């Protein structure tokens, strides 16, 4: 374990995906995210935002990584090493303790009530039932829905519940993958604002992926964007997407 000072530190990361007649390559030469920092991840659809998000969420194995550390209790966890060692249990523990994830659509469990959905990350860590769930629901405007099943909620309400779930266990970072892609613009504004406000309130870092450049512009967040290079080779099309902070 080493201490680099930042919450996340990525150097020389690559991840490739293969499709018939095409190859997609994700590159991250250097990327740091500080504790509590809120960053927008912009780029057109198919540019690899979700792939980057999954890497940071410890849910996808990098093909290569010079450095990949994640700040934890005892210092910086060597994520690259954990993937190399196939230490999937250790990665799961890190996910459970440190990461909150807001998927593109819901990702709520249909068989649990709204309360139990939000509470699940807390139950997993045996955290006490101390009113956190109710407070979050209150702040996100779904306090009336706690006893319902997700199926009876609107898409916008489900995204709010997903945000509450991502924050419930006090993660170090919340990863949001186009959380407003499937809601109307007015709701999108509200949901985005809630996400920003709540991560700030809980002191969690935020990595918000969006293809909506204008909306991100308005938020005034620091941005990470891809530099996309397309190349025709004998094997087919190679798309090389290199992510870096925009200065």
């Amino acid at each position: 374990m080493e201490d680099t000072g930042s919450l996340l530190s990525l150097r020389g990361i690559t991840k490739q995906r293969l499709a018939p007649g095409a190859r997609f390559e994700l590159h991250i030469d250097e990327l740091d995210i500080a504790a509590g920092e809120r960053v927008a991840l912009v780029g057109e659809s198919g540019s690899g935002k979700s792939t980057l998000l999954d890497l940071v969420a410890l849910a996808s194995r990098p093909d290569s990584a010079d450095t990949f550390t994640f700040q934890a209790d005892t210092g910086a966890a060597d994520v690259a090493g954990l993937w190399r060692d196939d230490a999937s249990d250790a990665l799961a523990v890190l996910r459970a303790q440190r990461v909150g994830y807001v998927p593109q659509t819901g990702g709520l469990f249909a068989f649990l009530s709204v309360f139990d959905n939000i509470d699940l990350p807390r139950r997993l860590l045996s955290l006490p039932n101390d009113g956190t769930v109710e407070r979050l629901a209150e702040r996100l405007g779904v306090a009336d829905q706690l006893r319902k099943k997700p199926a009876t909620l609107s898409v916008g309400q489900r995204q709010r519940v997903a945000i509450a779930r991502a924050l419930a266990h006090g993660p170090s970072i919340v990863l949001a993958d186009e959380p407003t892609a499937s809601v109307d613009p007015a709701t999108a504004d509200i949901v985005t604002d809630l996400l920003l406000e709540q991560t700030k309130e809980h002191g969690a870092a935020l990595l918000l992926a969006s293809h909506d450049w204008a909306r991100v512009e308005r938020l005034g967040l620091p941005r990470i964007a891809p530099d996309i290079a397309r190349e025709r080779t004998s094997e087919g099309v190679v798309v090389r997407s290199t992510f870096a902070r925009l200065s």
Partner: protein
Amino acid sequence: MNRKPVPRDLGRIVALALADARHEWRATLCLVLALAAVLAPLLVLFGLRFGVVQTLTERLAGDPRNLEIVPIGAGRFDKAWFDAVKQWPEVAFVIPRTRAIAASMDLLKPGGPIVNVEMIPTAPGDPVLKDHLPYPSCTAGPDEDPRIVCAGEVHPRMQAGRSDPTDLAPARARDISVVLSASAARKAGGVAARDVIAGVVGRSVDGRQDNVRITVRVIAVLPEAAYIRDAVFVPLELLDATESFRDGFAEPALGAEGNTRPEGERLYAGFRLYGRTIYDIPRLRDRLLAEKTEVSTRAAEVEQLMSLDRNLGLLFWLIAGIGTAGFLLSLGVSLWGAVERKRRDLAILRLLGFRSRATVAFPVVQAAAVAVLGAALAMGVFAIVAGVINSHFAGSLGVGETACRLLPVHVAIAIGTTLICALAASALAGGRVARIDPSEGLREV
């Protein structure tokens, strides 16, 4: 930075899996019904096979006729021979028989017709009488046969004669208890147990008819199925006495006068011999043939029935094998399919920090619930169907016989196999899902 507790995912997963199974109760019900629909007929089929074969075997083994070895023609068997045969491990019961000509008696119930019946020697342990004798009221040790240990009217026997000097026509013999076959009892005018009737054996000496009348006490009447001919089961001594009497000798047991029976060992013309099990019969037959004793047995019929049973068994196992394979396959496939439907949920569970083994446990818990519910339902259906079958066939079954039944061990095997296969199929499917990176399951939909 605050220290975080270690996740406890395995405990949570059980509750989550059951909550999901309850929420998707229609899908769960389909799986349970599908399982029960295949398992129940298999159970009925197996129950029928087991019940019928069991009943058949019990009948074969329980019917003394199948255990009997009958000598052909008259032989000469001495006491030493009987003592030796008694020691053979395959022999359950053996008793000498006197010449057939000397082994008949007229029975006479007061006011009833005279019936000529065959006298059959018997002794404690006789398989024909075994289950039909009245139990005495005395108690015996756990490994002792009360019919042998306890005194009283428990077995055909001769007791010390009651000499009543005031009786003008004193009984010329001692008190004899006997057992009658059903047809003999019927033909004698409806003799019942505890009746005291007269028995007459006669001889003609020098052209003069000499009848001896004895008193016999009927201690039991056999059911029709136990012995079909007209017969009275008597102690061997009575047959010995009758034989001597018919040969014209003096016989004190019958109060008859005549020449003194010459010294020398009595030789018997035949025997009643029973094997312990139906499997002993061929061996016993071969042993007797080896010492030049011609016998007839029902070994051939028994062997025929046993080979029929084997062939039926083969057919059964073929059908049951196909059924079981189909059952396990359909169970495995539907559980595999259930896991495939749950890929996204399982991926999200892993994204939330549930370890791979917890995501494997999720479908395994559900499969276990489905297996237990399905097996229980199948057992319920089996119980109903077996009840219907057994009551339908009740007429052709004896007491304690069933056409369709399973032992607890069969039930345990059925549930165990179902459970193991359900768990294996879902664990394999769950394991496959758990091996891929969580993000892949998330994005597939």
